[in-house]
């Protein structure tokens, strides 16, 4: 068995070298295909990252009446924290709200003068709530409207932010569906192109295949070297794609990090190196083998 494999690899490697033009063309097409799939994988990861970043920035605030006792507000906070939809709840007391405002607008004399004119602290205590997903805010608001502590609540600012939150939910779900749809189409196109390239390569060797049959070679004896050549091309294509992916990530990372809210391609690439390698090898070798098998069927009819 070992000798058979050794012979198979030796023959395939010789064929690969001697038909180097054909081998290069096949590797090129596989690199294009695998690069496309890697790019789709990266784009998907970036999209998920950006979406999560946007979701982080969405929240709602509950403003409590001026005379609401702090311990009641803190009880409300605890009750909300226990809900599965709630990611976190932040309590901002009246004093903290005043401090924040003063800190933010101290360079604005008009606002500072207005505040001084009012005399007292005009800000209400609030709870700042963040849900896991944008679509969960509606559930939270419904809960707040029927909860026991609703009498303490002055205002919930969800209805002002509702259009933004609903728009974000729609964008997220549409982006996911469209992304999947486009990915599927592009992957199919890439596979078809790669398959046809390999089919043409085997077509150009149909005379050799027919000679092998006449000499008495069985179908699998003929297929073996072609499949192994497909694997060799796949491995080379993967190595080249990995190198190009890494180089590209390393070069564009610093330029895009700010724009992508902190997503670093190079770090992502290194931390997901083995997954990327696995996906690329599976794709390139898979295409090589499946295409060879299908393309050779026509010439192996005994």
């Amino acid at each position: 068995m070992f000798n058979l494999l050794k012979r198979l690899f030796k023959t395939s490697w010789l064929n690969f070298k001697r038909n180097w033009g054909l081998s290069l063309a096949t590797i090129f097409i596989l690199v294009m295909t695998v690069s496309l799939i890697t790019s789709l994988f990266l784009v998907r990861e970036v999209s998920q990252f950006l979406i999560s970043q946007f979701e982080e920035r969405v929240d709602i605030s509950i403003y409590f009446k001026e005379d609401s006792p702090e311990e009641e507000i803190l009880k409300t906070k605890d009750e909300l924290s226990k809900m599965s939809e709630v990611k976190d709840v932040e309590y901002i007391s009246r004093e903290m709200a005043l401090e924040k405002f003063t800190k933010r607008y101290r360079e604005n004399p008009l606002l500072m003068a207005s505040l001084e004119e009012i005399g007292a602290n005009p800000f209400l205590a609030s709870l700042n709530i963040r849900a896991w997903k944008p679509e969960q805010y509606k559930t939270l608001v419904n809960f707040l409207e029927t909860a026991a502590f609703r009498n303490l609540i002055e205002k919930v600012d969800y209805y002002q932010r509702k259009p933004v939150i609903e728009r974000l939910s729609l964008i997220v779900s549409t982006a996911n569906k469209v992304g999947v749809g486009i990915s599927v189409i592009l992957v199919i196109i890439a596979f078809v192109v790669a398959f046809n390239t390999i089919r043409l390569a085997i077509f150009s060797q149909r005379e050799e295949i027919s000679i092998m049959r006449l000499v008495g070679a069985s179908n699998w004896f003929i297929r073996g070297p072609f499949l192994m050549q497909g694997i060799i091309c796949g491995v080379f294509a993967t190595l080249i794609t990995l190198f190009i992916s890494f180089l590209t990530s390393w070069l564009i990372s610093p330029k895009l990090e700010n724009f992508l809210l902190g997503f670093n391609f190079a770090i992502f690439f290194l931390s997901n190196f083995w997954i990327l390698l696995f996906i690329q090898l599976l794709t390139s070798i898979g295409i090589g083998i499946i295409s060879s098998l299908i393309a050779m069927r026509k010439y192996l009819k005994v």
Partner: protein
Amino acid sequence: MIKFQNVTKIYPPDTVALNDVSFEIKEKEFISIAGRSGTGKTTLLKLILAEETPTRGRIFFQDQDIHKIKKSKLPDFRRKIGVVFQDYKLLPSKTIFENIAYALEVIGASDKEISQSVPEVLTIVDLLDKAHKFPSQLSQGQRQRASIARALIHRPDVILADEPTGNLDPYNASEIIRLLLKINELGTTIILTTHNKEIINSLEKRVVSLDDGKLIRDEEKGRFIL
């Protein structure tokens, strides 16, 4: 050894390549199949190789009906037959050594057997010094000798030579025929198809003549008759 029993081959829609042909070939025989182009000679060889199936009749190889052999067993059957083609049919991307070795690899020979047998056969056909050349680097006569070496390497029971001298000049042609005679003397049955009058007449061996797909003559020491 090989028996044709009322064999007819019709290519659709109505081209009759062979018409009710019956004859037998004995072991270790040297037989020429003569006739002009298009008379059914190559079809006859294709039927023996099971590349084509007869429309009517049966063909037996060592008492086995060739066309009842399962498709999965055909490669094993074809390994008993060596074939020499007019257009050599050498694998262009393999050296002469590798082309001949391929016939042994197909039957599972070890590297040791290959490294011993191939040079022996190359010596028989006088191509030992060309072992590592590619077919494109050889003359036509050398390519045909390489093709014979490949046909011979796995010690087949029979060699089918389909117009092996068709592309060769008279010098190379006579060398090839001498080589086939030598192989026959060593015990291999040779079936040679040709339309070359000089070759047939010089051989003084059995000649089966075909005309329009019909067997018109079968003579032990035949001559080419127009």
